[in-house]
């Protein structure tokens, strides 16, 4: 025991004691008693991977090709979300179409009207994601909204209301160069979307700051309560 004590003193600066120090029963790394609370270590450990932080789960991205909305659903790390339900929803809540993703997480939905279309993907385990395709991106030869929409739910606006500066995208009859350019823009938008969905390190730090602040507020409120009592 004496010899071990001396050894421990010698390695006082080390954070993790070797497992032999603490007997054969312990098969996991044990920190020296001087080290901070283990949860702090865990926290520090998890905070070491900001690059891989990409909460939360399901993502869905869509773009317009002619009279079809194409897109893909995926989990963090570009893992395709296979055979999950994808629904197109009009601004007034009507369902415009419904399909399932294929083995690569891709889907295609025909467009029948020109309004802001929300693409909703829902996985079996309850995770879900949304993506909105704006009316301005849809072909101009489509009706503004289906006649069944009724007067209660106002359509987002007649096509004429959109600024004339928006280039019309009829789709198939464009020259090859412009088609290629469109494909690049779609890819770029996908990357921007992916980047937006990615959680950044400063968000994590900000959250930790809020929790620290809330703990401070809680302590302050308790101290107000205690202030009425005499000091011990």
């Amino acid at each position, binding site marked *: 025991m004496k010899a071990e004590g001396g050894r421990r003193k010698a390695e006082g600066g080390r954070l993790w004691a070797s497992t032999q120090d603490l007997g*054969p029963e312990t098969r996991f790394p044990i920190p020296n*008693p001087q080290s901070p609370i283990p949860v702090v270590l865990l926290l520090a450990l998890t905070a070491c991977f900001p690059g*891989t932080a990409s909460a939360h789960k399901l993502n869905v991205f869509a773009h317009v090709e002619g009279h079809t909305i194409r897109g893909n659903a995926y989990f*963090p790390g570009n893992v395709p979300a296979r055979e999950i339900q994808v629904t197109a929803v009009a601004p007034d809540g009507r369902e415009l179409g419904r399909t399932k993703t294929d083995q690569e997480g891709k889907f295609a939905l025909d467009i029948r009207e020109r309004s802001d279309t929300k693409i909703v993907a829902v996985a079996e385990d309850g995770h879900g994601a949304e993506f909105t395709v704006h009316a301005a991106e849809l072909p101009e030869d489509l009706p503004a909204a289906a006649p069944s929409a009724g007067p209660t739910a106002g359509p987002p606006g007649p096509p004429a209301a959109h600024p004339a500066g928006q280039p019309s995208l009829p789709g198939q009859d464009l020259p090859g160069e412009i088609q290629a350019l469109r494909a690049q823009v779609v890819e770029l938008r996908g990357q921007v979307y992916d980047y937006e969905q990615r959680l950044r390190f400063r968000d994590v730090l900000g*959250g930790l700051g809020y929790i620290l602040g809330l703990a401070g507020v809680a302590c302050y409120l308790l101290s107000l309560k205690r202030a009425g009592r005499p000091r011990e």
Partner: protein
Amino acid sequence: MHIYEGILTATTGGREVLVAGTVAAVAGTAIGLYQLDYERIPRTALLSAAFFVASMIQIPVGPSSVHLVLGGLMGLVLGWSAFPAVLCGLVLQAVFYAPTGLTTLGVNTTIMALPAVICYYLFRPGVRSGRLPLVFIAGFTAGATAILLGAMLSAAALTLSGREFQTAARVVLAAHLPVALLEGLVTANVVVLVRKVHPAVLDAPPLAVAVEGLGIGD
């Protein structure tokens, strides 16, 4: 373990789940806040921070990815105060990342915090035991149970909102089995560590003293 807003708002049963989950979360948070005293505030904040960070770190497992929840650990250390800790972490996630929307906040809080409280009552005695293997096993079971209970609550919520229970339970449980294992291991190690280094966190006597007292390691 998050449930997406659209699933629950779509059906009457789902809306009832929303209301019930919110009521449970409010009640749990009230009890948790009532029990919060000076000594508990820092550790509640610490575990809330650990939950907040851990639930956003995706660890790739097979074709998908998982993340830790630390529900068992929160339950063992905090008891009812796990409710405000989880709520706090989820609110911040919603603010920074908006994965689920605010209406499902109550349901999701209950899904993660209620199993934590159940683990507090089931495994706290085991974790405070003087025998190391028992502490390890209690910690592991608490970590795994919290995840599996949460998955079952999740499946129940999906069922009540109009999905077939067996499908929902199978999918949710299959997705959470690796998490339960991982979580069990992490919780067991952290609990053993806490017992040796800072046993006051679990209101228990230090474990290392007992081991050395037996003369092991001489």
